[in-house]
């Protein structure tokens, strides 16, 4: 469980996060949605302690992150898996080495155990023939999946994904969504996902936080997002004709 209280973050004059209070529960897939530029990535980086913030607090299982000692922070982070928006693969390592990296750093497994684990997770992200490619030789969608594999390889307690399925075709995107959901359920981890993909919202939005102009505009789940009359949310969610129709049908069915 991660609790965020009154989080403020600025870059110089630009006030990006203007007091966000919310929480992300364990064993659930928590989605942060909002328009491009609404501050999702900045918010996620504040959660991870990659950005300093002016005001507010972030607590992991009740422990205030900013008050941890550097070593405590590192121990906590060893339990975090993170998928960056730009993948952030180590470009001096092959795909298999990238995925193996957290195992080499944090476990005492033998080479063959590590290799088995790498094979297993690469298979789960539908990438079983790319082990020896360099990241620069992989497509954007492949890089994304490698980043996901690297994030989950060491069974993290917290999983953060910044737009895990942007750049993926609809079919692979659903495979990834389901994978994230499965892992969250299987290991009872706290998962936080940035997204503006409506399919993901419908697939895995057990908890949804909607950001607008640096504030939490709305909070709910995939079940309540259909029914809300918050205008900003409906405008965002039903921006496409397809979803407008779906909503109409849904409301008719349930009235």
């Amino acid at each position, binding site marked *: 469980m991660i609790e965020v209280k009154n989080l403020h973050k600025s870059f110089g004059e630009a006030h990006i996060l203007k007091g966000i209070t919310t929480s992300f529960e364990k064993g659930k897939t928590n989605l942060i949605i909002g328009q491009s530029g609404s501050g999702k990535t900045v918010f996620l*980086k504040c959660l*991870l302690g*990659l950005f300093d913030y002016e005001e507010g607090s972030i607590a992991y299982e009740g422990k205030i992150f900013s008050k941890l000692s*550097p*070593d405590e*922070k*590192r*121990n*906590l*982070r*060893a*339990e*975090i898996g*993170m998928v*960056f928006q*730009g993948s*952030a*693969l*180590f*470009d001096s390592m092959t795909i298999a080495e990238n995925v193996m*990296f*957290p195992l*080499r*750093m*944090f476990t005492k497994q033998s080479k063959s155990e590590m290799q088995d684990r790498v094979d297993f997770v690469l298979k789960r992200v539908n990438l079983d023939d790319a082990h020896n490619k360099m990241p620069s030789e992989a497509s954007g969608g492949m890089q994304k999946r490698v980043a996901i594999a690297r994030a989950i390889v060491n069974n993290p307690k917290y999983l953060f994904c910044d737009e895990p399925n942007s750049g993926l075709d609809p079919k692979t995107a659903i495979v990834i969504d389901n994978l994230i959901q499965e892992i969250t359920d299987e290991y009872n981890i706290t998962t936080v996902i940035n997204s503006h993909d409506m399919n993901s919202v419908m697939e895995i939005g057990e908890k949804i936080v909607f950001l607008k102009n640096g504030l939490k505009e709305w909070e709910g789940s995939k079940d309540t997002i259909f029914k809300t009359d918050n205008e900003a949310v409906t405008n965002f969610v039903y921006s496409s004709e397809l979803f407008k129709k779906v909503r109409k049908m849904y409301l008719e069915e349930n009235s």
Partner: protein
Amino acid sequence: MTYLHNIGKYFLMIAEMFRKPTKWSVMKQLILKDIDDLVIGSLGIVAFIAFFVGGVVAIQTSLNINNPLIPKYLVGFATRQSIVLEFAPTFISIIMAGKVGSFITSSIGTMRVTEQIDALEVMGINSLNYLVFPKFISLMLYPFVISIAMFLGVLGGMAACVYGGYGTLEDYVIGIQTDFIPFHITYAFIKTIVFAFILATIPSFYGYYMKGGALEVGKASTTSFVWTSVVIILLNFLLTSLLLG
């Protein structure tokens, strides 16, 4: 103000670099890779420059002594002194600031820009230790590079002198043995070790703390070269006044 701020930040970086060491099995490989990239990879250019500059120093010296009262072996002596005291430790280091320094800044800077450093930090890895420490350790082999430069510089001087007809082999050999002061070698290697530390850390500093995108990586490399050279020249002055003055 920003200078002071940067100097403070630089020393904090050095302190942080030694904290929470990376697992040895991983670190070992990083060090080997950096030895290959930074040390072995520089041998070619260093050897080439040292040999030919040694030759030029010998030719210049001999062309500039027309007075018959000055002994012929002075060419060897002067070449040895300039190579061992200044050319090999200091000027090779300036060249390394260009070659190795810009490589370090741009490779670490690219990792910063593409969030690879954030990825390391998020995993709970001390990224400064992971990235800078192996460079620091591998550059502890830098005196070895400089010894080669000294040897080849003196050899180049000899080749130019003898084959260019500026003097005899005997004179040159007598020259390089004349008035040999062992402390000069110590002085040269003290400088070399200090410069190795500068070469590993200042370019890392500019790469690690850069902000922006690909364009800024280029700018950071240039800034890093300028400051690495400036610091090397200043420390050279300081060490020379302290040790020989």
